[in-house]
């Protein structure tokens, strides 16, 4: 193996793949068989890059040659960059050797589209097949579904991969027309639909015949770029909800747009990556998936965007003060989950703890609840609680004063006397 050449390719093709934010290696149940190599489980982040993102899979493109010219993409046809392509065997060797050294949980393989969608998809499948059949590899494989790939190929891909994903990238159809004129919305949807139906079919069959083979056991995911086309948070979250509901997505990822082009349709080079916004979107995503919120409670036509200075749960609570204060010792779990400053872990602790005695501030503090936010919304076993009838703006002001956010500079529009 010519390590220098491999190193060169790896640098180019890892660099091009890094804008895909999906990194999860969990959710699959593939186990090691006949003393082979690898298994999957809850997922492990083996290291973290200097931008703080986890590295769990070897995330590379098969090639960055591409026939498309999507404005937001770094590998677009018209971009003047170094191009490279891996041979199938090279990807297999890299994956196996990294895996054996405990560097990674598996492979995340994507690709620029060369020749045609089907041709590209075939090559991706060939890598996965080789890993599974020749190397007896039971680690995690995440394949990209290439927009426009045929149903037959999507079916085959699911037999070898743990997860499949198509990146929708642009949340609105009008945005897609603007930035990726040669791609059609239907091309993204078709493979997604096929995989969804196959997963349902296989799950049904497994109920009858237990030994039914696995089909994409970790499900599907997708990704949207945030801040490239002037879309609102409402656009993004409603479209995310659509994918969760109608395509049984396991995850929707939000990727703050990193300026990589001088195209006038996009934010200029050097403009800031909207990381805070990205963070607020993920918080909202969690509220929808784990805290029992529905999307129209948080975002609607009157409130199309999330507040940057406070988290979405607090934002909701301030708009719905009529639900508060909540009695920690009596409230239902679903209401506990709606109190700002209380996460699901704390909800479980409260529910177990209050069986033994009525909880007071001291107990709550030790359990790790963020009282600086929660205290305006709860009463507990103590005569000391917020009696004043404060309005939303006052509470918000008091909470903001009590905390020191590292993002303060990004939303504080008060003029500063110095600097």
């Amino acid at each position: 193996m010519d390590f220098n050449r491999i190193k060169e390719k790896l640098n180019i093709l890892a660099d091009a793949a890094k804008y895909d934010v999906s990194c999860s290696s969990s959710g699959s149940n593939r186990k090691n068989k006949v003393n082979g190599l690898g298994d999957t489980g809850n997922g492990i982040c083996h290291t973290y890059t200097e931008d703080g993102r986890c590295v769990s899979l070897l995330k590379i493109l098969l090639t960055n040659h591409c026939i498309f010219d999507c404005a937001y993409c770094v590998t677009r046809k018209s971009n003047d960059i170094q191009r490279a392509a891996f041979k199938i065997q090279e990807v297999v060797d890299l994956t196996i050797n990294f895996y054996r050294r405990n560097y990674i949980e598996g492979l995340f393989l994507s690709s620029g589209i060369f020749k045609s969608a089907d041709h590209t998809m075939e090559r991706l499948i060939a890598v996965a097949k080789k890993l599974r059949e020749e190397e007896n590899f039971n680690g995690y494989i995440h394949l990209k579904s290439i927009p426009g790939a045929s149903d037959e190929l999507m079916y085959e891909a699911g037999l070898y991969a743990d997860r499949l994903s198509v990146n929708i990238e642009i949340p609105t159809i009008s945005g897609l027309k603007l930035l990726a004129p040669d791609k059609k919305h239907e091309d993204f949807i078709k493979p997604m639909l096929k995989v969804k139906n196959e997963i349902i079919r296989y799950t049904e069959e497994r109920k009858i015949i237990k030994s039914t083979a696995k089909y994409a056991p970790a499900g599907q995911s997708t990704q949207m770029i945030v801040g490239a086309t002037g879309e609102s948070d409402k656009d993004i979250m409603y479209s995310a909800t659509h994918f969760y509901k109608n395509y049984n997505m396991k995850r929707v990822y939000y990727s703050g747009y990193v300026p990589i082009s001088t195209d006038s349709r996009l934010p200029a080079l050097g403009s800031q990556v909207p990381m805070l916004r990205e963070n607020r979107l993920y918080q909202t995503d969690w509220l929808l998936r784990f805290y029992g919120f529905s999307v129209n409670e948080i975002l609607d036509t009157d409130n199309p965007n999330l507040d940057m200075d406070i988290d979405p749960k607090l934002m909701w609570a301030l708009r719905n003060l009529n639900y508060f204060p909540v009695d920690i010792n009596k409230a239902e779990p679903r209401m506990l989950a709606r109190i700002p400053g209380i996460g699901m872990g704390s909800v479980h602790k409260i529910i177990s703890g209050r069986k033994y005695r009525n909880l007071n501030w001291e107990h709550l503090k030790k359990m790790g609840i963020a009282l600086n936010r929660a205290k305006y919304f709860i009463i507990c076993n103590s005569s000391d609680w917020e009696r004043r009838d404060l309005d939303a703006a006052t509470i918000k002001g008091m909470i903001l004063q009590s905390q020191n956010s590292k993002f303060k500079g990004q939303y504080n529009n008060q003029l500063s006397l110095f600097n």
Partner: protein
Amino acid sequence: MNASKTLVYDGSFNGFLTAVFIGFEQKLTHADIQKQGQLQSGLFAETETIFTNIEKAQRVWNGVRNKSNSAIKNIYFAFLSEQNNMEALIYRYIQKLMGSKYNGATDFSDDGVLKINQLAHKVGREKHRMEAFVRFQLTKDEVYFANIEPDFDVLPLISKHFRNRYADQQWIIYDVKRKYGLFYDLNTVEIISLDLSDIHTNSMQKSTAFTDVEYEYQDLWNNYFKSTTIKSRINNKLHVQHVPKRYWKYLSEKKAV
């Protein structure tokens, strides 16, 4: 009946459970259980040496397990934390568990219970970190070798994970701090101790024990790590929070070139 007494055990988990058994047998309200060799007896305290008895240990283990499965895990994890005074904490925890009508293991309004949970949580996190941060290096006799230096004694906890995952390769994970390791010979995992002249961290100091290809792969991994970073999003605080510096010397991606 004594209210308080110092019990000295041999440092093993079974030894500790035996001590708990003796404590309950003698109805000690406060058992000061201590490891041999680290004994600090009080001025007037009575001391008794405990001889490990598997049967007695088993009875304590089963007794706790019948009460709660999560408690048994918490106790074992907290024990592996090797923290000062964890013996007394666990003793109190078991007392509470056995004395309580409900499953006392979930009383998060109790300081002792919360403390044990937090200790177990810390050990669990270290276990998970070791599953992530072990970096095998291939030796010339085809054994994948890794050094670790975990905060807590987590080798017993990670053995199964690595056995299941790397079933078709020989490997050694060696705890440099506690001077013992695990060796998998394609059949079973055994506990070994080695006479290591130097600690093999990464390609900073190359060793002849490893294959040449080994350093090529470390180099590739190091390169991959760099090229997958998005420069415009650098966030070193977050980076160090996830990968604390004390682990860096064993991570080939963090070696300075």
